[in-house]
């Protein structure tokens, strides 16, 4: 199958790209607004010769995934909000065992009792890690349907490259949106390609593999230095971001996912009025693209974090990235998708000195 450009929903693009990346095991539990991923896998996984399981709960689904990952398969699960909370046990175990897997979190806002809305309230949970353990997950945040496919496809390679969990941090808006999408070429994954997996093919004299906390098998000093090196390499190598009109910007908006889409419109509209806005759009939110905040030019007067949360979850990362050299402002809209007009007005007020810089709580 060659690459092709088609119209798809964000969720479908994630599922299709996963299948094309060689994902042959999916287990999950229904929850809005990620259910299309599960439904797509239910409909299509068999055609690809893989296994789809609708789990009895998130925890069981993650454990099945964990078994499949330990046995060498490319595997994925997905959830939202409270369902993603329940995945933390599995993510912690996958991490402590250094098993590769791709987990999708389609964020929504709050518990969603009675009403499901878009949101970006799970940044901390995904980026800082909701579960226990001394770990770092690579977290990629698509801002278009095309990127849903591209990043998911790549996530499987990254997961294996580092033997690490990779999280796709989508949101209710991106997940439900239909756009053009270029689907990557389908490839097969060889479940026997690694020497550390559980297999049924070893010979009597072969060393048997124990999949457990890695420090038990390679020893603590080796494990510790390996992990330090891994965190460092992932941090240095995997920073991804996009910049829009930053060359002469007075204020730089910082946003990912659906918020970044609104910011693109805001930058364009603001410039029509002579207001010089720019945008830094983190694509990897861990590692955070700190390189985008190096050598800040004089024309930049401050950063504006635009998030669908009230607690400015990403704001901390911006302050760390710019080393507190510029003030940070927050346009924080919780369950409402931000509107470009309101954002532009807010930026005008910042430049007029009417808005106080934000403290990150």
């Amino acid at each position, binding site marked *: 199958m060659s690459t092709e450009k088609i*119209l798809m929903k964000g969720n479908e693009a994630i599922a299709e790209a996963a299948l094309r990346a060689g994902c042959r095991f999916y287990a999950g539990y229904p929850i809005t*607004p990620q259910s299309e991923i599960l439904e797509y896998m239910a409909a299509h996984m068999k055609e690809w010769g893989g296994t789809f399981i609708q789990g009895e709960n998130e925890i069981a689904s993650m454990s099945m995934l964990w078994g499949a990952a330990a046995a060498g398969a490319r595997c994925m699960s997905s959830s939202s909000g409270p369902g993603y909370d329940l995945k933390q046990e599995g993510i912690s175990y996958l991490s402590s065992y250094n098993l590769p897997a791709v987990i999708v979190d389609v964020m929504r806002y709050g518990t969603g009792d009675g*009403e*499901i*809305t878009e949101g970006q309230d799970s940044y901390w949970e995904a980026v800082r890690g909701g579960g226990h353990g001394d770990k770092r997950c690579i977290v990629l945040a698509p801002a278009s349907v095309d990127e849903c496919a591209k990043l998911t496809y790549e996530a499987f390679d990254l997961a294996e490259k580092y033997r690490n969990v990779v999280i796709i941090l989508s949101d209710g*808006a991106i997940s*439900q*949106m*239909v*756009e*053009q999408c270029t689907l990557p070429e389908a490839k097969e994954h060889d479940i026997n390609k690694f020497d550390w997996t559980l297999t049924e093919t070893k010979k009597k004299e072969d060393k048997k593999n124990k999949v457990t906390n890695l420090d038990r098998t390679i020893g603590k000093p080796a494990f510790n230095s390996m992990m330090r090196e891994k965190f460092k390499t992932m941090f240095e190598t995997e920073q991804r971001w996009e910049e829009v009109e930053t060359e002469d910007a007075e204020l730089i908006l910082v946003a990912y996912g659906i918020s970044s*889409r*609104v*910011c*693109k*419109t*805001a*930058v*364009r509209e603001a410039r029509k009025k002579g207001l010089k806005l720019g945008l830094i759009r983190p694509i990897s939110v861990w590692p955070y693209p700190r390189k985008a905040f190096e050598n800040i030019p004089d024309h930049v007067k401050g950063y504006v974090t635009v998030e669908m949360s009230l607690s400015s979850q990403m704001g901390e990362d911006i302050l760390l990235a710019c080393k507190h050299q510029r003030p940070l402002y927050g346009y924080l809209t919780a369950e409402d*998708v931000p*509107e*470009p*007009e309101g954002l532009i007005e807010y930026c005008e007020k910042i430049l007029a000195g009417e808005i106080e810089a934000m403290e990150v709580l």
Partner: protein
Amino acid sequence: MADIILAGFGGQGVLTAGLILINVAVKQDKNVTWTSSYGAEMRGGTASCSVVISDEEIGSPYPTKLDVLLALNEPSYDKFLPMVREGGTVIVNSSLVKKENYPDNVNVWKIAATDLANEQGAARNTNIYMLGAFVKATGMMEKDFFIEQMNAYFEKKGKINPANAVSIERGYELAEKV
């Protein structure tokens, strides 16, 4: 090029109409986005979807100012009319939207979509009549090309129905500018 909202009751085919639009638009090499409202708005009696068709990269998929509104019922008309730009186009399903006066600063087109669909014996084609009127009112897409691409869309879904082309033709023909 165009920021569009299609809105009506759940069941009037509003979401499908939006999907047909973007499927035709991509064949014109446009960039498109389609988003549907879910949650609060659905419970407010309206189902709606936003469609953006553009030559440029699309930023926000949620337009706040509209070039075109397709209102399939009166609550949708009332709700979304204030978002329509000066000089924009409003297409109303006059079977259900019965206003005595329409604003002067926008171009209003009427089509009795529900009645016409019922007359045709294709009650679910209200949305297709609206699209016929859309093609006429906006001139964004050439009619025969639209029909061809719409049929291709349904064909992919295995739902070919010759009544659809008839509905577009009739909607095109009978749409009236107020």
